[in-house]
């Protein structure tokens, strides 16, 4: 996933074309480079981890190599969904039919098509090898021992269709399509040997939409880098006033904040991330990192400290490079070290604390 979307190398003719277009279209506002999670269909979803099973349509069963490709694509969808989206697999008698052949009702130019009626099921069709469009001939790569350039990979096309079944609309690419490989569910399917012609995993922006719709599989699952979710860190300590040499247990909790579109993710605890504990002497401003907190269950992170002087503590989550989370810091929390006037000092109530206060 290219989060920063640097400009690709553009050939001279592209620059020429660009200049020509810009010069002649000065009255038209430049297009925004839209890029983000795939849009979604009608907002009606399958149940989390719902098992969708398909079988071949009576009288329109695909040939073996296409069946293999479609079955593999179902496994690709299930294995790369990185969310609690529905699982998809072939099963004898599966209620969702997939057909192949001249009866495919895919419009004039469609390679494959689908219907979905979540949460009930779906249907799917694939054009037959050799189908004559008015612009060319259908070539499935799987039909050849040495697939020619210009063929479509049936596994990729099927994965695209399964993405639709899950509820994904076509990805909106950035201008120039430099982010094409961030999604398999594309408006324009590509042929060999174009980049992305044989994608066998959902792209990060497909996954982003699936995670929004179906939630993460676990608190430790990586958030798609096509998302940009705000996070929040809460912090608490086992005692706010301690004697010298006493342990203080500090617990931080990391969770997704997100926006409305992330409703399913909002509030999710995030485990297994790197959380740093920072300290500053009370009354100063400079923070010092003193420990990497130990990751626990359900998005908790712990450390134990023995403050020698009164200090403020905070937990810090740095924006990770490999997933779609925005770093955050907890509010500071103060731990006062009460000096002991004379040994032996009490372990729970420092003697310089007036009775009735703690």
């Amino acid at each position, binding site marked *: 996933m290219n989060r920063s979307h640097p400009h690709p190398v553009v050939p001279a003719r592209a620059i020429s074309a660009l200049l020509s277009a810009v010069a002649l279209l000065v009255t*038209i506002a430049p297009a925004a480079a839209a890029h983000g999670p795939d849009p979604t269909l009608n907002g009606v979803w399958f149940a989390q981890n719902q098992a969708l099973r398909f079988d071949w349509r009576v009288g329109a069963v*695909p040939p073996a190599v296409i069946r293999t490709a479609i079955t593999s694509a179902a496994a690709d969808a299930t294995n790369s969904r990185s969310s609690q989206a529905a699982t998809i697999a072939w099963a004898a008698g599966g209620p969702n039919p997939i057909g192949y052949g001249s009866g495919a009702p895919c419009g004039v130019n469609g390679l494959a098509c689908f219907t979905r009626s979540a949460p009930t099921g779906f249907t799917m069709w694939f054009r037959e090898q050799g189908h004559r469009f008015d612009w060319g001939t259908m070539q499935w790569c799987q039909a050849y*021992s040495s697939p020619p350039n210009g063929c479509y990979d049936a596994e990729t096309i099927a994965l695209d269709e399964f993405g639709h079944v899950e509820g994904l609309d076509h990805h909106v690419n950035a201008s120039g*399509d430099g982010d094409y490989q961030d999604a398999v569910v594309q408006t324009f399917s590509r042929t060999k040997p174009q980049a992305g012609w044989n994608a066998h995993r959902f792209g990060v922006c497909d996954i982003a939409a699936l995670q929004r719709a179906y939630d993460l599989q676990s608190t430790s699952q990586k958030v798609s880098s096509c998302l940009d979710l705000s996070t929040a860190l809460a912090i608490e300590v086992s005692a706010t006033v301690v004697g010298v040499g006493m342990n203080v247990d500090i617990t931080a909790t990391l969770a997704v904040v997100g926006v409305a579109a992330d409703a399913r993710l909002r509030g999710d605890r995030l485990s297994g991330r790197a959380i740093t504990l920072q300290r500053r002497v009370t009354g100063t401003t400079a923070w010092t990192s003193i420990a990497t907190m130990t990751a626990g269950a359900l998005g908790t992170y712990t450390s134990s400290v023995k403050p020698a002087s009164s200090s403020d503590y905070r937990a810090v989550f740095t924006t990770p490079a490999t997933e779609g989370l925005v770093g955050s810091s907890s509010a500071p929390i103060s731990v006062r070290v009460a000096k002991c006037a004379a040994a032996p000092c009490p372990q729970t109530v420092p003697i310089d604390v007036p009775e009735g206060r703690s």
Partner: protein
Amino acid sequence: MTSRPMVRRVSNLVVIIGLIAACGPATGSPDPATPSASATTPATTATTATASLGPSSSPSTSTVVATPDPSLPPDATLAADGGDAVTGQLGSFIWGDGGSDSGTLPGAPVAVGASEPLTIGLVPLTGVATWAAALTRIDPDGTGVAPIGIEEGPPPMTLTAPGAGTWRLVVTVRFADHAGSATYTWRLDVR
């Protein structure tokens, strides 16, 4: 979902085919960099089909839960100022409870003048939430360069023709009321 008479679709197809035939070769993508299905079946001599890929007639125990009949979104027409409207090639779309995926299409040919105002319409008239247009310059050798987004936003769907040359214009429409989306392609021969 509205289902319209097939005759209109056939009529449109005839128009498109006619226009393509009138304007030159229409088989296959003219753009090797973005090839679609091959019109000329360019399998090399080293390439051999490994299997007959006709539909198998082997029995299945599947139970049909619905007839996959993704009805079609509206046609889109492109008209230059004072010119006849040309129906674009329908590519990938989402419509109703279904959808279809296509490759890059060569586009319905239409001749326009440089900088001429162009208007895109939908037949039947359908509400539009947003639309986007992208131009790809098609070189004389048939290759294209990366598409350039030129317009994006709410209606009206109007734009200005680019400079002289051959261009592929792809318009993506997202319909109002979450009715779906569709792409339409034209080949602009700009004088």
